[in-house]
C-alpha cells in the first residue's frame, strides 16, 4: 500500500457539450513520482479531461482529487497554486513579453505582485527579483534558450516555443505537470531533448501526466498509461501490457497508425 496519497484521482469525471458527452465517466489514479501518459484515439476526450483537471472547464459529474484534496469545481488559478501546472497543445507563450519575462511571471507567490509592495515598497521585492532572475536564467540555460532571453517570445521558432513552454511550466514550481501533447509537431532531435528534460525533471521529484500520440516515447519512458476512448477509461497499466489488451488494440492501436509522424 502506498504511504502517500495518490497525487491525482479522477473519479467518474463527466463533461458534455450540448448533446455530445466528451468525457463520459473517466476514472484513474496516479501515484506520486509517476511519469504517466494519457493516450487514445482522436476525439477520445483527452484534452477535455486535461481541461477538467486543470479547472479550465467545469465538471458536470464526478470528482477530481489532487494530493488528497477535492479540487472539483475549483478555479484554475487555485488549482495551479496547489502545484498543478499545465501546458497547452499549441504553444501559448506570452507573445509581447521577453523570454525571460515569460519565466519570471510563471513563478508563484511573488511579493512584488502585491499592490502595496509594488507601489510603496520596491525594496521588499528587489531581493526576490534577483533570485527569480537568477533562477530563470539558469532554467533558460538548461533548456538552451539563454541566448534568446531578451527577445520577445513571439519571435521564437516553433521548437524553441515548445522548450519555452516546458521551461516556463518548470518555473511554476509544479508538483504535477500536465503536458498536452508536448511532442506534437516537433522534430525527432527535439523530441529526444524534451524527453531528456522530462526525465531529469521527474528525477527531481515532479510527477507527470502527458497526453501523447507518440507511442514509442510512451513505451520507452512512461511507467503508467491510461487509455481513453469515447470519453471513458478503457484500460490502464504498462504500455507493454496494454499492447496485448484486445480492446485497446482494436480501439486505438489496431486501425490507427502506431506512431504519429513526428515533425
Amino acid at each position, binding site marked *: 500500500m502506498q504511504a502517500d496519497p495518490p497525487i491525482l484521482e479522477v473519479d467518474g469525471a463527466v463533461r458534455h457539450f450540448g448533446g455530445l458527452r466528451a468525457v463520459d465517466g473517466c476514472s484513474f489514479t496516479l501515484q506520486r513520482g509517476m511519469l504517466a501518459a494519457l493516450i487514445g484515439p482522436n476525439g477520445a476526450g483527452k484534452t477535455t479531461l486535461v481541461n477538467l483537471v*486543470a479547472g*479550465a472547464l467545469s465538471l458536470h459529474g464526478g470528482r477530481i482529487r489532487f494530493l488528497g484534496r477535492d479540487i472539483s469545481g475549483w*478555479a*484554475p*488559478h*487555485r488549482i*495551479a*497554486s496547489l502545484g498543478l*501546472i*499545465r501546458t*497547452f497543445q499549441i504553444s*501559448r507563450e*506570452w*507573445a*509581447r*513579453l*521577453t523570454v*525571460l*519575462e*515569460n519565466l*519570471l*511571471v*510563471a513563478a*508563484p507567490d*511573488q*511579493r*512584488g*505582485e*502585491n*499592490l502595496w*509592495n*509594488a*507601489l510603496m515598497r*520596491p525594496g521588499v*521585492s528587489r531581493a526576490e*527579483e*534577483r533570485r527569480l*532572475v*537568477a533562477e530563470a*536564467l*539558469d532554467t533558460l*540555460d*538548461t*533548456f*538552451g*534558450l*539563454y*541566448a534568446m532571453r*531578451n527577445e*520577445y517570445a513571439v519571435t521564437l*521558432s516553433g*521548437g*524553441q516555443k515548445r*522548450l519555452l513552454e516546458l521551461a*516556463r511550466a518548470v518555473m*511554476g514550481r509544479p508538483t504535477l505537470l500536465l503536458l498536452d501533447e508536448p511532442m506534437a509537431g516537433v*522534430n525527432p*532531435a*527535439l523530441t529526444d*531533448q524534451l524527453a531528456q528534460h522530462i526525465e531529469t525533471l521527474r528525477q527531481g521529484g515532479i510527477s507527470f501526466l502527458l497526453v501523447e500520440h507518440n507511442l514509442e516515447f510512451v513505451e520507452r519512458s512512461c511507467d503508467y498509461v491510461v487509455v481513453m476512448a469515447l470519453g471513458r477509461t478503457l484500460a490502464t497499466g504498462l504500455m507493454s501490457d496494454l499492447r496485448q489488451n484486445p480492446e485497446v488494440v482494436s480501439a486505438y492501436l489496431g486501425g490507427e497508425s502506431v506512431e504519429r509522424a513526428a515533425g
Partner: protein
Amino acid sequence: MSAIVFYIATVVNYFFIYNILAWGLNIQFGYAGILDFTYITFMAVGAYVAGVTSLGRQQPGTGVTYILGWHLPFPLPLLLGGLAAALLGLLVGLLAINRLRSDYLAIVTLSVGIIIYSLVGNLTGLFDGFDGLVGVPEPLNGQVHLGVNTYTIFYMAVTGVVMVILWFFAQRLRSSALGRTMRAIREDVDVAESFGKNTFRIRLVAMVIGCFYAGIGGALLIGFVGAFSPGGWSTLETFIIWAVMLIGGRGNNWGSVLGSFLVIALLSEATRFLPAIPNNAFLEPALRNIVIGAGLIVVLRFRPQGILPERKAQFSEVRAARAGPGEPHAG
C-alpha cells in the same frame, strides 16, 4: 503678463491633465488589456465630486443645485475626486471583468457611461443636471490671491507636481512584478490563470488604479476651468483619450505624453489652418473629429503599437557560476 504666456500656460495645463488621463487609460489597457470605453465617465465623476466638495453649500436663488457642498480646502477635493472615480471603477469592474468576451466588457462600460450620463443629467439635485456645476473655487487661490494670469501659471505648477507624482507611480507599477503579471494577463488571460494568477483580482486592480487617475484628471480639470457639465463629456472625449494613448504608443507612458502633445497641438492649432467656411460653424469641429477618427484607424492599421512602442524590460543579470552560455540547441 503677456497674452502669449497666458496662452501657453493654459495649453500646458491641458497638456498635463491629458497626460494624467492617458496614463490612467494606459494602465487599464496598455498594462492589463482592459477595454474601457467609458473612461471619460470616471473623469467626470472625479470632476463632479471635486466640484461639490470644494463648493460651499448650494445657495437658493442661484438656480444651481447640487449635493454636498463641503467647502473643503485643496488637496482634499482632489483626493476625494480620485477616490470616488476609483470606487465607481471598482463597481463597474466587479460587474464587467470576468471570463466573458472583451466585447461584453466594452458594451457594459459603454452602457454604464450612458446611464450615468443620463442620471446626472436628469437628477438635477445631484450635480445640477445638464447645466452643470459652475463657480467652482480655484484651488489654493483663497490663500494666494493671484490674478487670473498668474494663477494659471501657479496652477500649472500644481498640476505639474501632481502629474510627476502620478508618473512616478505609474512607472513603478510597470516595472514591478505586478506590472509584469498584468502584461502577461493582457497577452493571454487563460495561461496566466493556469499559473496561479488571480486574473480577476489583478485586472480589477488595474481598472481601479486607472479610474483613480481619471478622477484626479477630472478634479484638476474642474479646478482649472471652474465649471463642468455633461456637455464636456461625451463618447468623443473618451475616444480622444484612446487616440492619445494608442497613437502615442500603448503600454508606454512616454508614448502617452507624446500622444497628448500631438492631440493637444492638433486640437488647438489645426483650426488655424482650415479656411473659414461661412454658415458652417459646426463644420470645423466635425472635420477635426473626422480627422482624429480616421487618423486613429490609419495608425492602428499601419503602426498598431503606436509611435513609441513599449520598451523591453531590462534586467541586471546575476548568474550562478556555469560553464558558459548553453550551446544553441533548439531548432
